């Protein structure tokens, strides 16, 4: 694995539109097995029930876009990926820190996929991408038969459009791989279901580039929508197998009667790790499509400055919290001292009542200050949570 591979990920993190980062982040935070099961139980056999999850992701992403800066979103996504995949925490004070961090994330993603998907035997980002692209096109064939007739026609048209976007000679290559000259509906249907189209299109991703890839993702997403699942492909491909498990009575009957905590925990972890791997792949592919490297570089520099600022803010907030804690201790000690002195002597209670009241006020104020400071410190820490601030 090379630093060039690593930089694909952070180039994407710092140059793709904010909305994309927000959607990845919202997906990782929102999707879990409990929610999927909830939807499954509430709308059993009602495939449109999954729409609710997609809406939740979109709503959460929209909130992020409104309330969070680009830099914060990128850091949050890095943190979420690190946490889900179990990658080492990092500081971000120089460009090479991003290489190290994304390198660790890629390694963790490879390990995660090998553990979660026994058909994956790869060891590099390249292997991850190839496996995922093949899975993507494989889904076209798997889902096709479930579609109503008119949707099948739409899919065939979309496939033909997709191929027509390739240069002429490359279209000929695809036809040659499929073994036909004329991409008739009948033949395309056969190619889709048999899987031969999948391998021909997977090979064409490299030829067609990122635009072609995105077209293919749209196609799969559209098909997924037709069967009631409109999440982005990264989520979609990861969800299908998990949903199959979750929908199996052998899984969810024990879950309903309890005692399935372990199964749940494993499946949920598996689902979320696969989602994270999907996001890593998506980012790497997006990283290959970057046209303006200077934008990524400038955003990275801004991120380093933001990290520095956050470090200082956290340090200042911690200092203030400690000071507030000391202030509270002093005020409480003073208050107790005055109360004790007043208790010994009724006369002095009268004269010291004012002082006691002031001391109690000071305690209240100190408590409030401490509360605010603690929240500030926690918020500062939470802001880049998991990234070794």
């Amino acid at each position, binding site marked *: 694995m*090379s630093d060039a591979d690593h930089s694909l990920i952070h180039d994407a993190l710092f140059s793709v539109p904010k909305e994309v980062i927000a959607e990845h982040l919202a997906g990782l935070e929102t999707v879990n097995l409990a929610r999927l099961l909830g939807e499954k139980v509430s709308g059993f056999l009602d495939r449109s029930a999954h729409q609710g999850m997609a809406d939740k992701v979109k709503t959460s992403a929209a909130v992020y876009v409104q309330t969070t800066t680009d830099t914060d979103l990128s850091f949050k996504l890095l943190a979420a990926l690190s946490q889900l995949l179990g990658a080492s925490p990092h500081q971000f004070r120089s460009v090479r820190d991003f290489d190290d961090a994304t390198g660790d994330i890629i390694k963790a993603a490879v390990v995660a996929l090998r553990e979660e998907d026994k058909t994956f035997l790869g060891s590099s980002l390249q292997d991850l991408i190839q496996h995922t692209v093949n899975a993507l096109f494989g889904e076209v064939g798997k889902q096709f038969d479930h579609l109503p007739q008119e949707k099948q026609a739409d899919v065939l048209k979309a496939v033909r459009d997709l191929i027509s976007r390739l240069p002429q000679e490359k279209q000929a290559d695809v036809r040659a791989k499929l073994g036909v000259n004329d991409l008739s509906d009948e033949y395309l249907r056969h190619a889709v279901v048999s899987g031969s189209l999948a391998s021909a299109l997977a090979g064409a991703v490299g030829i067609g*580039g990122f635009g072609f890839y995105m077209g293919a993702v749209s196609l799969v997403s559209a098909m997924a929508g037709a069967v009631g699942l409109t999440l982005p492909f990264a989520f979609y491909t990861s969800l299908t197998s998990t949903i199959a498990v979750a929908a199996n009575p052998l899984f969810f009957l024990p879950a309903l009667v309890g005692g399935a905590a372990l199964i749940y925990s494993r499946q949920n972890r598996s689902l979320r790790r696969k989602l994270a791997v999907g996001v890593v792949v998506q980012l*790497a*592919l997006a990283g290959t499509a970057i046209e303006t490297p200077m934008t990524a570089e400038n955003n990275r520099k801004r991120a380093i400055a933001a990290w520095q600022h956050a470090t200082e803010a956290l340090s200042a907030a911690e200092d203030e919290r400690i000071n507030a804690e000391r202030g509270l201790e002093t005020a409480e000690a003073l208050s107790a001292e005055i109360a004790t002195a007043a208790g010994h002597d009724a006369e002095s209670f009268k004269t010291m009542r004012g002082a006691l009241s002031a001391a109690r006020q000071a305690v209240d104020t100190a408590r409030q200050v401490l509360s605010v400071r603690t929240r500030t410190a926690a918020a500062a820490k939470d802001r880049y949570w998991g990234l070794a601030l």
Partner: protein
Amino acid sequence: MGEPSIIDNPRIDQLIRDGRLDEAMYEPLRTTSEPTVRLRGLLSSVGLQEDTAYGSLTLGDLLYDVIHVDPIVLQAAEFSHSHSIDGLFSFAVWAATFPASDVPSTQGAINGLEGFAAERLIGMHLEGQGHDVHFPDVSNEPGYDALVDGHPFQFKCLADVQGIHEHFARYTYPVIVNSELASDVAGMPGVYVDDLLHRSQVREIAESSMQHGTGMAEGHVPLLSILASSPVPLYRLYRRETDLVGAVSAIVTNTSARYVGGTIGGKSAAILGGALFGPAGSVLGLSLGSIAGAAVGRNAARIARGVLTKGDAQAVRGAAIETATLALESIPLKREAWEAKRAAVVDATKFGKATVIGSYIVARHDDDFVYMNDRARELARFRSELQSVDPSDVWKHLLVLIKRAGIHANVIQEPLSRLNVLTAGLAASKSRWMA
């Protein structure tokens, strides 16, 4: 001249003509880095991947690495056209610092050029690993060719080990040699292998240089173009292509008979160990191979082993602390070297268009400097927390940190060898008590 150009991205040329040098720095050198090609590279064969990896280098990457080795090359640059930058990397520019009296137009000249090219190539490879390399103003310093992080080193590109023995008969300076000698020098104290330096390639560069423009004066022999058109990854790609954690893990868990996977494929763990950590590294694979097996055991046995092997574990930690301490002690000299290099770059970029390049190079230098210092701090923290680290894992973490901090193996050879022996002893103890 017919050689492939380093830069074939027309946008670079346009930006330079428009006076937008700062933007040109972020442009990829080649149009092979077009999105479609990049994606194809990512999804296809290794050969194309290498090409894509090269294509992902920007003009800034190239200038940074080359100028970091030889700030003086900037003085020859005009920055008026991409060809003038290609010219910047020509052998002729570097060779201008080579004393003409040493270069008669004979076989002797080729030999002289070979030595010169090898020096520069080793320098670039070391830079790629995070070291500072300084070539003394007067060439042919007795016994050493360059200062690496402030320490004198001899660079040699030889057909056999005879020259190495001759060197050690007179001097004690460590030597860095070409890859062909890797198996001959394995375990030889003070000898390190540059596994990217190939004698045949160096010879080709020198001979091309003689064919074009009588060797030096007017010749446009793009050294890096030759490298770029070869399947061997470039200087900076050395770092890019080396998965350090994976490499170290491979040395720990593999024997020399097994190959390191991924992009490093083809190098045996022992050779890789030699390249990364010198003589001690080259034998680590063999002696530490048993650790992986010893580390696999039942929990109960682990606790029992923990008690019975406590002394061995403490000895490993002691050697690790010593290794980390020596590594940390080398940091101040390295910092001085880096600061001197920064001053040299600033000095060489005072005027004209070079100031833009200078700002870029200095910013990158400062960024790398922050990284290096942070890793040094991390190393210091690791040393202070060593008591809580599993002794079987100590060496892997330690070496990754040392490499990331850009500390040359020469600094830590002695305690590293001891750590090697002690860790092997620990593994043996664990095996014994596990049985």
